[in-house]
């Protein structure tokens, strides 16, 4: 398929065959995708190959105080990868190691709201949380554990009250809206 890969989660039930669910479970109802596991959840797009410099993004449908929904990058098929997920007040950039989570960045300043497009960009060793196409201030991490893989979805114990209405994954600088070296915007802050 041509990149960027996209999904609007039409239909009901399990994700389409273009997805591999690595950790937990995801389902879709009336155009909303959400996880249903009482644990963290990770899925990746399997229908395309992606460059190491990649992104995932999706439009948030509802945020509540107890569920997380988000996107992922560099999922390698062994329950590894990076995620950016959020609930109503708090977002995390997380490294997932065989399903276990290590928090790389924490933002309790309500960085995302209902209808926002949550994104995660991985470029080299830098992983940056995005909101509506722009880097979230001071929401990023440097981590060299995983260097390749595919973008996808992430969540924690979501019900339909908190999900994504669409998803897009692609390579940086390939016309998908995210560009390589966006992190250079942050250099001036150093």
């Amino acid at each position, binding site marked *: 398929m041509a990149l960027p890969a996209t999904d609007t989660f039409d239909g009901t039930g399990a994700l389409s065959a273009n997805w591999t669910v690595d950790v937990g479970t995801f389902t879709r109802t009336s155009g909303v995708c959400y996880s249903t596991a009482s644990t963290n959840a990770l899925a990746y797009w399997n229908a395309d190959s992606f460059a190491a410099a990649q992104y995932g993004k999706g439009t948030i449908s509802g945020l509540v105080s107890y569920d997380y929904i988000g996107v992922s990058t560099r999922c390698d098929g062994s329950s590894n990868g990076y995620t950016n997920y959020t609930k109503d007040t708090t977002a995390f950039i997380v490294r997932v190691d065989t399903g276990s989570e*290590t928090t790389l960045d924490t*933002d*309790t300043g309500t960085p995302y709201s209902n209808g926002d497009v949550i994104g995660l960009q991985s470029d080299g060793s830098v992983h940056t949380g995005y909101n509506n196409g722009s880097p979230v201030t*001071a929401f*990023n991490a440097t981590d*060299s554990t995983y260097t390749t893989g595919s973008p996808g979805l992430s969540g924690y114990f979501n019900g339909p009250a908190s999900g994504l209405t669409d998803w897009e994954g692609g390579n940086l600088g390939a016309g998908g809206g995210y560009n390589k070296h966006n992190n250079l915007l942050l*250099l001036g*802050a150093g």
Partner: protein
Amino acid sequence: MPRFYIMPMVIDDALDPAKGPMRHAKYIAGFDKASAIDYGTEDVCIVRIQTVSAAQHTALVSNPDCIGTPENIDQNLTQNAVDTISTFLESLNIPADWINTSKTYRQVVRNIAAIFQFNQCWNGVTGGSSPFKDGLNLSIQYNQLSAQNKAILQECFIRMGFNTDNLFLTSTLRTILKEFASQFLANKTIIMGEAV
């Protein structure tokens, strides 16, 4: 003002009791923004906390397993600071023999963050281990490594696009970590909330 700390990594639900256990920097609960770089699967990290009051800083560094930088990280270390930080790092298998009074705190933060990337690569290559969990120590030489560990080490350099020209049979793991960090800093960016 942001501050940098070296502190343990722990697994608990302090960041969100409703969510359940996560591995995270030990003392970041309650702070608005914190960006951590772990030493791979070793339970220590360097963390930048976006806003830290003087009272919070005092409380953090009163913990024996946590050390922090001053607000101004562009000042040079004193000899007393060199001694304190070096002893702290070496006790955690983090090479510190390069730290001296000619270094600024920013250089120290950057180099530690870059050294940590090697263990992260080791984690990625091995699927959850570290050189130290695999029985190595900082003094072991390359020619004393098993064939498997040599392959892991080489893969760490290859994955990052680094060369092994400065690695020799008698290079110690300490030297190798510092060489990896040197190439990381020369070729890549350290971002912890902001560029460091």
